[in-house]
């Protein structure tokens, strides 16, 4: 942690960046995103296993971008998000620097190529609890799964904390926000909730980096991250493209192969 604070101070003092986005102490045992612009503020930076939220969501927030060149304290998921955002032309290499804790030091990654190289060395696994949930759900019958999601999604109030926390949900006008046509109902009744979460999971297919921040953001404890994990997993399995692996555009659902293999079309 101390070297992170020192690194942040150095970068700010040298004018290399105008802003360091990292984690600070929050309420109780929580951590919160902090926006460090001076050397003094750098003392608030912390780095520990409780720092899990994906901070890449701030890279597409207008008020934050306006602050200037940014260094971002990056977990493995955050690095993948940066690559995915780069592939979608939402961040510029020259505006961004990733700070990665590695073997007791803080490594600076200034190019997407460097970030790709780093990501290639990192394990690409989801949390054990999530893997267990996915296995359990996979073992259920269709009817049991329907009952599970009906119950879970029944608690959804359409607060959109999931959408707001997700780095890949950066559309200024989300499909939910359009009313000509109102393709998905706004109301948080059962059908509106199912439609919203299915649309979101499909819009994230192949783009999700499996950070789980959406599920963590949900105030009502709905494991909605499992939905985007499922759609990302489908793309990964069938087209060999995990989310956030490369800064080159490779969106599986925007392209095709004439001989894509499936077993369900008669």
């Amino acid at each position, binding site marked *: 942690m101390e070297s992170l604070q020192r690194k942040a101070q150095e970068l700010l003092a040298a004018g290399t960046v105008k802003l360091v986005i990292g984690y600070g102490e929050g309420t109780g045992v929580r951590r919160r995103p902090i926006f460090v612009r001076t050397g003094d503020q750098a003392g608030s930076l912390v780095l520990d296993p409780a720092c899990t939220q994906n901070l890449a969501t701030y890279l597409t927030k207008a008020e934050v971008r306006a602050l200037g060149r940014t260094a971002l304290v990056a977990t493995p998921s955050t690095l993948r998000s940066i690559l995915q955002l780069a592939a979608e032309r939402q961040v510029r290499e020259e505006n961004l620097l990733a700070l990665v804790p590695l073997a007791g030091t803080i490594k600076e990654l200034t190019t997407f190529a460097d970030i790709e190289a780093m990501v290639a060395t990192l394990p690409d696994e989801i949390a054990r609890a999530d893997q267990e949930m996915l296995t359990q759900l996979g073992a259920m019958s*269709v009817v049991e799964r329907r009952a599970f999601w009906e119950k879970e999604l029944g608690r959804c109030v359409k607060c959109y904390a999931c959408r707001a926390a997700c780095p890949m949900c950066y559309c200024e006008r989300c499909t939910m926000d359009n009313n000509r046509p109102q393709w998905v109902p706004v109301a948080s009744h*059962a*059908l509106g909730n*199912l439609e919203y979460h299915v649309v979101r999971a499909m819009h994230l297919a192949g783009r999700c980096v499996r950070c789980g921040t959406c599920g963590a953001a949900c105030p009502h404890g709905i494991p909605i991250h499992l939905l985007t994990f499922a759609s990302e997993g489908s793309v990964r399995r069938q087209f060999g493209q995990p989310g956030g692996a490369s800064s080159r555009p490779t969106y*599986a*659902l925007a392209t095709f192969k004439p001989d894509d293999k499936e077993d369900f079309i008669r």
Partner: protein
Amino acid sequence: MAEPFEPKLTAFVCNWCTYAGADLTGTSRIKYQANVRVIRLPCTGRIDFMMVLKAFARGSDGVIISGCHPNDCHYTSGNYHARRRWMVFRDLIDFVGIDLARVTFSWISAAEGAKWASLVNETTDRVRALGPYQEIGKLAAAGIE
């Protein structure tokens, strides 16, 4: 005595291949079960995946999606994009507990009138055996006070 269950099927088909094929079925006087309501779209590539869900929400017991064979798309590649979309969407709706046995995908060309009839008959029989599907439709009234 209660009327026996007759399934309602909604079919999303492309104008250039399957719709024309279904037309040929008619002009060839091939009889097939009348449970299907056909919705004509320019191309399977235009089919939004939510149309499947919305068909179930509005009372369909089964959904058919059909278009041009690969390499024959009137717009060159619409059906290729559609295929990829369905490859992912099927996994997702299965994951949220929607019965994939009720969703049928097919390539039917303008010349395949017999295939259209056979597809509709087979699908109607299958969905009739599965029974009415209210799992999604019942959600329309749920969660509103």
